[in-house]
């Protein structure tokens, strides 16, 4: 289990567990500016979803044909490591994975933190997710176009940075390593899922962390999530982009910390 999902652990071994789940397109490295801040009080756990980072879990298209397979993975991890009173921090699609896990096993989770959540990316009647169906097809094409680069055996082009040789070296240890075939399927599952009806079933106290300018999950979507969940509050971060844990780690830590102490 530990190897399958590349689970890494730090912090207080008998402390309350805080489990960080990365979103689509990246891996647990995303949390490297945020997770260490909780190591003084919590048992900090990170993992890679199937097909991402250093996960060795076998990809079963049927299991992962909906978010349920990913949800089951989270529950399996909690059970295997015997985690209780869990603080679950999910970025992007992992917010919905956390929501579904908390519906399935509410007793296991103490608090949820959603970073840039969206229950549905595609616009619908009376709902604005920010994307049209055609946009998602375009994303899949865009992944295909990059598929070629990812899977080719071509040596990466070393850029002419004689004064910064580490730029060249880092090519071999690529962050956000992703299996392209799985990434495409994960993208489909992520961006075509609709979990709006699930939100009202989450009874675990939840913090929604929303960036003020986010092209993937706009503010109104964050507000929708907060409004629809029975026990949620939103903190609006003055940050651009979909990854405040990378672009604004300080305020992200502060907001999570305040929520956990409350």
């Amino acid at each position, binding site marked *: 289990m530990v190897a399958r999902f590349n689970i890494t652990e730090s912090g207080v071994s008998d402390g309350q567990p805080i489990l960080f789940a990365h*979103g*689509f*397109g*990246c891996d647990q*490295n*995303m949390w*490297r500016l945020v997770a260490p801040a909780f190591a003084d009080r919590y048992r900090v756990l990170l993992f890679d979803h199937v097909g991402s980072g250093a996960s060795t879990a076998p990809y079963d298209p049927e299991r992962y044909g909906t978010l349920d397979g990913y949800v089951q993975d989270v529950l399996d991890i909690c059970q295997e490591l015997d985690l209780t009173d869990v603080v679950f921090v999910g970025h*992007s699609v992992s917010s919905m994975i956390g929501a579904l896990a908390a519906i399935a096993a509410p007793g296991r989770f103490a608090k949820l933190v959603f970073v840039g959540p969206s229950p549905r990316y595609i616009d619908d009647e009376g709902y604005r997710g920010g*994307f*049209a169906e*055609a*946009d*998602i*097809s*375009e*994303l*899949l*094409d*865009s*992944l*295909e*176009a*990059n*598929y*070629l*680069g990812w899977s080719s055996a071509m040596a*990466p*082009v070393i*850029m002419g*940075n004689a004064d910064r040789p580490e*730029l060249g070296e*880092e090519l071999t240890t*690529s*962050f*956000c390593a*992703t299996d392209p075939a799985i990434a495409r399927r994960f993208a489909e599952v992520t*961006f075509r899922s609709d979990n709006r009806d699930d939100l009202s079933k989450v009874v675990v106290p939840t913090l929604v962390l929303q960036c003020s*300018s*986010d*092209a*993937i999950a706009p503010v109104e979507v964050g507000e929708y999530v907060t409004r629809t969940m029975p026990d949620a509050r939103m903190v609006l971060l003055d*940050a*651009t*982009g*979909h*990854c405040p844990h*990378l*672009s604004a780690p300080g305020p992200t830590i502060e907001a999570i910390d305040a929520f956990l102490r409350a």
Partner: protein
Amino acid sequence: MPDPDGDDDAEELYQRAPCGYLSTSPDGRIIRVNDTFLGWTGYGRDELVGRRHFSELLSAGGRIYHETHYLPTLQMQGAAREIALEIVCEDGDRLPVLVNSVLERDDAGSPRVIRTAVFSATARREYEQELLRERQRAEQSEAKARLVAQTLQKTFIPPAPPKIPGLDIGAAFRPAGGGDEIGGDFYDIFELSEGDWIVAIGDVCGKGVEAAVITALARHTIRAAAVRERRLTTVLEVLNESLLVHGAERHLTVALVRLIRAGPRWDLSICLAGHPHGLIRRSDGTVTRAGHPGSLLGLFPDTLLDEVGLDLDPGDALVLYTDGVTEGRSGRAFYGEERLVSLLAGGAPTAPHLADAVVEDVVRYQEEDTADDVAIVVIGFQ
């Protein structure tokens, strides 16, 4: 500052470089852009600088990719390169580009500026798409070929061993590798008349379509010949002749067993043609060889074959297998008869359990990467 050669300077090199240049703040707001980029995209400098984020110039699909993969990679790694994106030009046209970016930090380590070089990739994208289509075509052909191979392979073995009163029959088969190439192992169990059964197991040399044709020929020739001929040696001689007539240039090995019910017991005989010995597992766990070695088939008109009787008691089992079992390799070592014998000695509750246990063990020994087909038939006497 003028270039030492006097005909180029840094500003002109920047503005009119053969690639687009963009500088953005760490959150993506455009702070500088060169003439080449503006020329390609049709935007005016005033429309972009200070007003637009780089990601806003991308197609919606590319924007998601940018936000979820490209930007995080850049923020963590300091550089991201050869990312394929599409820029939406001022007139709405799409410009396929390849993008390289570096993130510069200040002395304190905080992100200061993102520098991006944009390469027009229209022709390259068409070429890539052609490659992608070819790859998809190849994957489809492969899938089709695999399906043909698997369908054909299924005809080499009965769908399930028959139920024969007084006998406990188990059989297991595992095609080489991923099963996308047709191997030449086969087995068959069929009834000639009431209480008169033939069990055949064989291995055609080689793999592929040609081997498959011979495998099918062998299985059906054995069936046809066994109906006419009483003696196992004659059945195999007929098979040898039909192989030579066919001009197959592929040899094969066969073990043939005849079982005739005689009251509560069975009269048993075995004939080997270039095939590994059968193994008899007695009820006390001892294992002995069964059958006399004989010629390979499909090579020469004359054969040297010997049919010998076997005497099995209730609780005993006769095991027939192909060389994919004993010649299963792990590095330079072979699985070998000894390992098989000790596994058989351990026994199993039923014949199917024993057959499955052998195949599982052989596959595990080869770390799932089986180089040859593996076939085994176990006949338990009750």
